[in-house]
């Protein structure tokens, strides 16, 4: 048994404990203590990891453990973390913690809600700590059931349609991924599904390119790469607040993480061969997402399209193939995860008070709810890349890395993608101005309450994390480069 499995175990124990609760107080107690425990374990993991590294442990994966599961298919429960996955676990823990706080007062069936939510969390943690392809896929797919039920039962708007669309599209992505995984396993003739060992095997062309296309598209669907992003706006806007936070904060990162760890690292030749196609698609993602956000009138839709734009940037940075851009990509994963969670949290808080998400219906909320207003502004400014916040660090690193690649296509698309910064500024500032400072549309808004304590804790935690990444980026990039160092050698040409 690996000590890392504690991250899967805690949510599962939460589910069991929740089964025996019979009132809201107990549910809240368990969800709070469970998610706090997850957060503390994640912080402990970071500290332990850092200590091991400074003590001179140079193994690629730390705390690695390997248990045989199905011998005939070489399926192992193999776990291990490098700098990148440690940060992803930390990000997931922060988002799970804040997301379970946001739903503190959820109206219907809190017990069932938190049960499914814990299940969702277990899948995400399991994915990040696994280094076995089957186990990774197992945890990736585990989210199907909770996502479907959480959106369908607790969602709003066209929830039936959105839940079905989201789950089917993600399943479509998974099908491509699974085909790719089977292909890697049988075509390398390897006796293992471990991604560290598989990285040393080679697959002949053109099979490698075909598998790369399958895997990258599959993970691209999960990570909302243009033109497979269509599940994002509907899914995010119909989901309840904490699920929206989880979906865009963690779920989309699963796609990006998989695209890098599995598709690019295991199939480098295929990646170089087909990079141009996906570079164009991700460039489009970045700009298209930003433009689409410009035209939306619903706050959640705006943030959903903004997410598409920002996640596109991660894929874009992967395909630049140099260390700077890759570092930027992972910084962007963390940064976007935190910012978008903060954004969705604020939107959820506003929505629960005003019962509308339409920008045109709102105005002058700053006067009524200053605390939420400030959080909203910070999310906005961080999202458009103001120095001091995480967004700036991440995007800066990506674009510097991108300009280092002197390929003609890369150059053009870098210029193209940088344009998104300006568009982002336009839609963010417009929304912030209208919602917070504009003319107050309804008198009834005067009596709305500001943030409750659980909402304050949520926002403060997320803002602190965003500022932390923004003010001490070198520590974060050191962590990321620690993970990248052994991978990058085979990748950069």
């Amino acid at each position, binding site marked *: 048994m690996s000590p890392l499995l504690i991250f899967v175990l805690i949510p599962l124990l939460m589910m069991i404990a929740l089964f025996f609760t019979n009132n809201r107080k107990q549910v809240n107690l368990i969800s709070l203590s469970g998610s706090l425990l997850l957060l503390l374990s994640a912080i402990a993991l970071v500290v332990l990891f850092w200590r091991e590294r400074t003590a001179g442990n140079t193994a690629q994966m730390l705390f690695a453990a390997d248990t045989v*599961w*199905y*011998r*005939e*298919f070489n399926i192992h429960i193999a776990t291990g973390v490098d700098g990148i996955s440690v940060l992803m676990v930390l990000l997931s823990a922060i988002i799970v913690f804040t997301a379970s706080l946001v739903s503190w007062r959820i109206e219907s069936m809190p017990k069932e809600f938190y049960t499914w939510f814990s299940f969702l969390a277990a899948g995400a943690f399991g994915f990040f700590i696994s280094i076995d392809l*089957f186990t990774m896929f*197992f*945890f990736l*797919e*585990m989210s*199907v*059931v909770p996502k*479907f*039920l959480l959106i*369908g*039962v607790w969602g709003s708007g066209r*929830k*039936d349609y959105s*839940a*079905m669309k989201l*789950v*089917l599209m993600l*399943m*479509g992505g998974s*099908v491509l991924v*699974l*085909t790719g995984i*089977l*292909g890697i*396993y*049988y075509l390398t003739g390897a006796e293992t599904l471990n991604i560290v060992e598989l990285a040393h095997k080679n697959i002949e062309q053109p099979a490698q390119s075909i598998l790369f296309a399958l895997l990258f598209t599959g993970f691209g669907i999960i990570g909302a790469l243009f033109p497979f992003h269509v599940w994002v706006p509907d899914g995010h806007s119909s989901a309840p607040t904490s699920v929206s936070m989880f979906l865009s904060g963690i779920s989309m990162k699963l796609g990006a993480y998989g695209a890098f760890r599995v598709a690019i690292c295991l199939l480098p030749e295929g990646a170089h061969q087909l990079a141009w196609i996906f570079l164009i698609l991700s460039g489009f993602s970045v700009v298209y997402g930003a433009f689409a956000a410009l035209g939306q009138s619903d706050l959640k839709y705006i943030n959903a399209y903004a997410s598409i734009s920002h996640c596109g940037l991660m894929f874009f940075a992967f395909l630049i193939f140099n260390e700077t851009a890759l570092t930027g990509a992972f910084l962007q994963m963390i940064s976007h995860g935190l910012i978008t969670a903060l954004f969705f949290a604020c939107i959820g808080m506003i929505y629960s008070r005003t019962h509308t998400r339409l920008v045109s219906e709102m105005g002058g909320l700053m006067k009524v709810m200053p605390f939420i207003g400030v959080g909203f502004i910070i999310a906005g400014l961080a999202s458009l890349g103001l120095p001091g916040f995480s967004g700036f660090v991440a995007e800066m690193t990506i674009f510097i890395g991108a300009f280092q690649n002197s390929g003609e296509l890369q150059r053009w698309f870098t210029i193209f993608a940088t344009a998104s910064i300006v568009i982002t500024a336009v839609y963010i500032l417009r929304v912030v101005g209208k919602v917070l400072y504009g003319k107050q549309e309804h008198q009834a808004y005067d009596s709305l309450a500001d943030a409750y304590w659980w909402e304050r804790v949520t926002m403060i935690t997320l803002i602190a994390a965003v500022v932390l990444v923004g003010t001490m980026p070198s520590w974060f990039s050191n962590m990321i480069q620690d993970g990248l160092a052994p991978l990058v050698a085979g990748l950069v040409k």
Partner: protein
Amino acid sequence: MNYSAFLQLHNEMTLLAVIVILLVIDVFSSEKGYRFFQTLALILFSIHTLLNCVPGEPFEVAGGMYMYYPIHTYIKTILNVGTLIVLLQAHRWLNTEENIIRRGEFYFLTLSTLFGMYLMISAGHFLMFFIGIETAALPMATLVAFNKFNNKSAEAGAKYILSSVFASGLSLFGLSLVYGATGSLYFDDIAKIMTASQIELIGFAFFAVGLFFKISLVPFHLWTPDVYEGAPTSITAYLSVISKGTAVFVVFTIFVKVFGVMIAQWQILLYIIIVLSITVANLFAIRQQNIKRFLAFSSISQAGYIMLGVISGTALGMSSLVYYVLVYMFSNLAVFGVVTIIENHADKTSIRDYTGLYYTNPKLSIVMALALFSLAGIPPFSGFFSKYFIFSAAFKEGFYVLVFIALANTVVSLYFYLKVVKIMFFNQSENPIERISTDIPSKISLIICTLAIVFVGLVSSIFEQISVLGFGI
């Protein structure tokens, strides 16, 4: 004659004993003793299951007419457990006023079909095999028409017997060609003599089509939805799991063992059949309004997935197939269990009637949802593992495109399984199914199924047990 050979057939013998005891009790028992009839039947059958669940050494009886391999114990135990679950689920239905006098027949007929299936599985000679097929099919038709005053049930019985006889006829004709070409009906002899000549191929094709009728693969599936809809729900469950499980196992052994020379030809045949079965059945399932017709199409598409284990023709394919049957049995019987309960209490079989089931019967709807997710192949439920293994087995033999088509179809199947989940969970109904207090036998059956759905996949030793014996054939 050496009668000690019969002792080796202890699986068949204890089943026969159970059948005979039940028949005698049914005929001679007093009114009072009759009350314990079902409990006694369940206990006897459980004992029979327990006695025969440990695999032994391979042997043959009656000059090779009957061959035993250790894997037979597993497949027969799977069938036994499945039958036991069906009997538990039928308990309440048999206690209704119109059925109470007929429950003796029900047990007799059900267990007789099971006996026939045992013979099919262990046959080493085509005559024995054919006796098995007929012993299984004829009581089955009676069972399908069990509610003989119900038009649909009677119609289903007629349809089943006609298509069954037709299929048997085709098989028999195919066998006569094979016999003509090779001069033997022993599996081993045929395999030695066979050269894949033209006449043998034609014989094989007829024989295979007859079996495909039994498994209800597209395009030989047309009887399935009507029969599934008309038959009493417990019988439908039996038909979709036990009958089908036996048939796919038998197809595998006979294709590999007897027609192994023609592997190139039957792989092409199966390739087409699998693609058709999965795709067509999935598309039809989307449009169904009746839950039993819906499950009929779902079971056709599942049969298509199971055939992926056959097409590989390897030991890995065999163990994946047996494992798939095991998982499919628990998942499908869980769904049927819920459907039976709702049909018995509320007399509703339309999918629309399930609206808001979660809000009145949370436990039933959660069991049903878990089972549907398992059928769709979503982790962490067992269905995911069985699908992964069977895809792996086929992928390993180079059927890349076929596996991809099958995988793409899982998205479609997820859609229609989720549609049912959506109806149960997302919206409340104005006219919901009222709160049902489930009877104890059904409860036990659902608990067994649910535990199996959750844990069979996670516990790897089950698959390892099966795969150790994977290919004694």
